[in-house]
């Protein structure tokens, strides 16, 4: 492999955005048949570099060579023609179109200019099949869950004539089992000589996949190391600091019940007959495969989903059917998993997204906004979350994905809560920031709040939670605590709900 021409080579790539240098003379080299991980903190410039490779953005300076030839990629179509294809961090799906249409978008199989709908479905079916994803081909994409959308997104990039495949946090919303097939496919591609650029914050994925790792920090190239480099070393390279431990020690819970749900069934039947409770000072995990109903169970607790049956109690007080506003007044807060569609006010200053539910608390007579104290508190929280760049008055859409996620979490930390329901809280957040987030969650629990973590990231659930409820097909299939919380048991209950009796 020594004299091989690199599949992709970038030199001196720079890119500025208003107020930020996203990339500063970055070099990057991708060999044929290797998986090359891009690693760096949130806002380090990974996604920006990737958009330039994929033709989705232009660089201010620098050159791109594909298979040794200098090329200028003016748009995605150019890149695709040269065999470069990408899964972007933010979904790029057409919500009103079907899954099949989305998978083949831009390259519908056609004969003599006539699109064959049969061929479209076959191609989509094959792509999804290769990845082992089972998604109804005719469902409009807007009706899918985030995880399913992620799968469609991945399927779009797996084309037949690939030379370079770029994956920007493709598994952020998938859980381990669902990721496995993807890893295998990446391996297959490598063997066929396809170079894969892979962005991830999950150390496990680096272990599993990386041939080499390029580290970026603050838009600058730091170094490229072999994939076997230890996690501690990678984190040190990324943050410039040594990080001893990711997960904090979690304090023991109290025995007072904060929130309890009995026989919860949602209107849309996504959850049926689920009973669970959260105690003060306790961190409870909701695990489950995609579409298992874990999110909907959490949403129902915060008044986001309407109930068909069952009831909810907060500190022994009935709060069944409370609206979102009432829940917030009861200090029950739900953070949505999809920061773009349900979380942030994208074209408003980031500050406003953070203080949104709490505006009443920052107002005289709940009407006149005290802008000064709002600004101060939001700035404090975001500083603590290590927002980069630390300027809450930039529009939310101008932040990197991970930083948007931090801001969303900041929303929950802005005010003290009784019950905090975090749905996929650390999607796309870098390891360094995750440490401080986990620490905050532990602190909040210690402060007496009940915390629910809904997550597809199994390690997160395993390490952070006192107890775990496992969901399958809308029902709770297991209730694990203490030593019972381990990977095999959780996985087993996720998939075979009939083997164990539903827990009441």
């Amino acid at each position, binding site marked *: 492999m020594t004299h091989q021409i690199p599949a992709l080579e970038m030199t001196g790539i720079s890119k500025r955005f208003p107020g930020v240098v996203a990339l500063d003379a970055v070099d990057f080299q991708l060999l044929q048949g290797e998986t090359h991980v891009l690693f760096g903190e949130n806002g380090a410039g990974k996604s920006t570099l990737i958009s330039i490779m994929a033709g*989705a953005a232009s660089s201010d300076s620098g050159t791109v060579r594909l298979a040794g030839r200098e090329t200028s990629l003016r*748009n995605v179509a150019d890149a695709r023609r040269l065999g470069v294809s990408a899964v972007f961090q933010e979904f*790029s*799906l057409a919500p*009103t179109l079907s899954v099949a*249409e989305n998978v083949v978008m831009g*390259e519908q199989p056609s004969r003599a*200019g006539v*699109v064959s709908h049969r061929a479209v479905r076959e191609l989509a079916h094959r792509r999804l099949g290769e990845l082992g994803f089972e998604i109804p081909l005719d469902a409009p994409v807007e009706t899918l869950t985030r995880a399913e959308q992620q799968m469609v997104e991945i399927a*779009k990039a797996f084309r037949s004539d690939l030379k370079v495949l770029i994956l920007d946090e493709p598994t952020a919303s998938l859980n381990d089992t669902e990721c496995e097939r993807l890893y295998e496919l990446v391996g297959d591609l490598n063997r066929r000589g396809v170079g894969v650029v892979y962005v991830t914050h999950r150390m496990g994925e680096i272990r599993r996949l990386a041939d080499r790792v390029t580290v970026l920090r603050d838009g600058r190239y730091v170094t490229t190391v072999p994939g076997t480099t230890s996690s501690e070393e990678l984190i040190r390279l990324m943050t410039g600091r040594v990080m001893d431990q990711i997960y904090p020690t979690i304090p023991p819970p109290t025995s007072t019940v904060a929130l309890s749900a009995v026989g919860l069934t949602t209107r849309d039947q996504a959850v049926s007959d689920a009973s669970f409770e959260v105690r003060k000072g306790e961190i409870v995990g909701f695990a489950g495969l995609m579409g298992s109903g874990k999110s909907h169970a959490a949403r129902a607790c915060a008044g986001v989903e309407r109930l068909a049956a069952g009831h909810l109690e907060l500190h022994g007080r009935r709060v069944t059917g409370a609206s979102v506003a009432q829940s917030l007044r009861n200090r029950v807060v739900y953070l949505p998993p999809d920061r773009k569609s349900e979380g942030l006010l994208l074209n408003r200053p980031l500050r406003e997204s953070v203080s949104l539910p709490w505006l009443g608390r920052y107002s005289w007579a709940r009407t006149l906004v005290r802008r000064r104290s709002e600004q101060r508190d939001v700035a404090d929280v975001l500083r603590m979350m290590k927002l980069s760049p630390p300027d809450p008055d930039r529009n939310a859409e101008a932040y990197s994905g991970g930083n948007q996620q931090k801001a969303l979490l900041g929303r929950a930390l802005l005010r003290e809560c009784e019950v905090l329901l975090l749905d996929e809280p650390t999607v796309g957040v870098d390891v360094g920031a995750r440490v401080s987030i986990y620490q905050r969650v532990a602190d909040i629990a210690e402060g007496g709040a009940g915390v629910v973590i809904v997550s597809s990231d199994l390690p997160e659930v395993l390490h952070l939670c006192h107890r775990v409820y496992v969901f399958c097909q809308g029902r709770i299939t297991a209730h694990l605590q203490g030593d019972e919380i381990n990977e095999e048991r959780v996985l087993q209950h996720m998939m075979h709900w009939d083997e164990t009796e539903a827990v009441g």
Partner: protein
Amino acid sequence: MTDVVVETKPAAARKRRVNVTGAAARVFARVGALPILLAIAVVVFAMLSPNFLTVDNLQSALRQNAYIAIIVLAQFVVLVAGGFDLSVGSITALVSVASATAMSDRLAAGSSPAEAIVIGLLIGLLVGLGAGAVNAVGIGMLKINPFIMTLATASIFAGLALKVTAGVPVSGLPADFSDVFGYSSWWGVSTPIWIAIAAAVVLWALLRWTRPGRNLYAVGSNPNAARLSGISPGRTMALAYMTSGVLVAVGALLLTARLQTGESNIGADLPLLSIAAAVIGGVSLRGGSGNVLNAVLGAVLLGLVTNGMNLARIESYYEMIVLGVVLAVAVLADRLRGRVAAAINAGRV
């Protein structure tokens, strides 16, 4: 909205209720609000006026609305791509005066009627294409907001049409033009209706079976996603506006044939009317969805309601009020359909 069966009822009564409303709900969810509203309109107006449900009247109502239906198709194409066209009315006027001027000039210059007609048709289509191209450049290339761009060109094209004619109808068109394109009929159905049907079928096929057609939906649904899939949203949008311009020209030519003159003050209502018809036909103003048949049905519904009210001699104030109510109800009913479908899916009906 949908009645959920309450738990306390005896099971038998419950069962029956489910069956009756259930069947109705299922029909509703299947066919949508539009055919039902059309049926209601037909029944109501048939009761209000004995002349409504005659072959003659229905044929005449459809013929009157044939060119509107074509312009609704033009609007439809643009809406699917996530655009908006407020200039369809002005383009109609401009095409009308341009083609009429061309025909009457040719005729005056001694051409044969057939030659004059062919040239007039060509000029009309070219003007429509050109007007569409202006929109296309502004929206597709310069990325000016479609609402503003077409509002601007609406003003510009109307100014041009007036400049050409000073508001005086252009007369002296070949009689054949009007006879063939305005008043002839084949197998008992008049030509404008045939042309509208042909336009709808062609457009349907283009949107369904060609790649640019599919791209239109993709761009309308999420331009950024389309871009990241290698589709140029700008170029696709430009294509939509040019197609739209040509379709408007077809409608305008039919109208000119019916009026027998080129008119600069026609079409003022068309922009909002065509959008309303398309939306009633289930097209989303956010782009990326809608089907040709329903858009045409939307135009037919509005046309029949107006015709019916005219026949029933409803006072013109009330006509305005009724039309407003029909619009709102049609869209509301479509929303309701979504709910009913969801309820059926959730097994609650």
